[in-house]
């Protein structure tokens, strides 16, 4: 491996390490408990506007910890979200928000988004697996 390649690999690894830890391929939402709702106030750590599922990472501000309590929250696709009134600029890193999610069944800190409120503006955005059907 050349030095240049090594530098590229190292740089990519660093960038990846600083960004999201996992990928969100096309999958079922059965790992989320649709009968439960978890609500908390937090800060947007990152917002990924990509297919097949957009993703938000939110730091839970209720329990300030030495290691931030980051929740990984999935949404439907950008196309479906656009039909629900979202844009890729709907959330910004650092935004203070209130989130409402269907949590992961296994208790890990993640879920599928139901509703998010941007506290500074009062903007409310919703997401649903069931996209708007009848016009």
């Amino acid at each position, binding site marked *: 491996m050349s030095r*240049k390649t090594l*530098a*590229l690999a*190292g*740089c*990519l690894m660093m*960038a*990846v390490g600083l*960004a*999201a*830890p*996992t*990928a*969100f*391929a*096309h*999958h*079922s*939402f*059965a*790992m*989320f*408990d649709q009968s439960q709702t978890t609500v908390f106030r937090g800060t947007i750590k990152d917002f*990924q506007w*990509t*297919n*097949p*599922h957009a993703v938000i*990472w939110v730091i839970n501000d209720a329990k300030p910890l030495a290691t931030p*309590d*980051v*929740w*990984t929250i*999935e949404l*439907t*696709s*950008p*196309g*479906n979200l*656009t*039909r629900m*009134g979202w844009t890729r600029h709907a959330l910004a890193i650092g935004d203070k928000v209130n989130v409402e999610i269907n949590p*992961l*069944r*296994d208790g*890990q*800190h*993640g879920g599928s988004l139901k509703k998010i409120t941007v506290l500074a503006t009062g903007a409310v955005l919703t997401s649903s*697996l*069931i*996209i*708007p*059907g*009848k*016009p």
Partner: protein
Amino acid sequence: MSGAFRAGLVAAALVLCGGAASAADDPSGRAPTPQDWAALAALPDWSGVWTPDIEDQFVQARTNVPPWTPKVAGEMKAMAADEKAGRPHGIFQNCLPEGMPAWMLVSHNALEFLFTPGRVTLLGESDGGRLRRIYTDGRAHAADPDPSFHGESIGHWDGEVLVVDTIGVLPETYIATGEALGVPNDGDLHVVERIHLVGPDTLHDDLEITDPHVLAAPWRTTRIYYRHRGRKNEIVEGACLQGSFNEAHDAQGHAVFAPVAQDQGNVVPTPK
């Protein structure tokens, strides 16, 4: 003119005419005429963007279960139990095209129809791999079409109903009733669809799916789509695999996609 020479001319003419007739019979080689384009106006209006009725997909999954073979029925029971327990099988996790018939059966994303002379094209959202070419130019199926994700689809208009016959589907594509519930068709899949409006903005796709490897009998089911118009509803480009990459920068500062490890269909959240 000698008899032999005349016979030769006749034979040559037959060959030539036969060749010409053969070319004329092959609709794929004919350029569309202004009349062909004008004829599109007589077809039903399927413009706009169509979103699937996902709630009805779930209802269908519960109430109109495919007539699986006993072996596959057992496999489906186990898959359903895993999904119910929050351990879904990621059958589309690899981001390959859902293909036929899974796309029509379980997609949560929008699609659009394009009419051109001799063809109806379906384009799906969320992944560029969702694309069906349905030939309505009068051709017959190829004798042995190369298998593909969406197969070889030949259509014709029965009044305002588009009748589509599809064969040549890759054996690995799923017959699915959910994003975590389905089985590969294993080959010899045959799908007949009747696609038609049932209201001003409601479309039905009535499917009859035959598959001797996993179905004990033909399975008939309907999927419902609703029309939307306006800019915010237009299909947006998507690449399913984009979610498998992070936006990063290389050593030169260029924006690049950096692959990240895949999960198994479940979210792997940031550690507590």
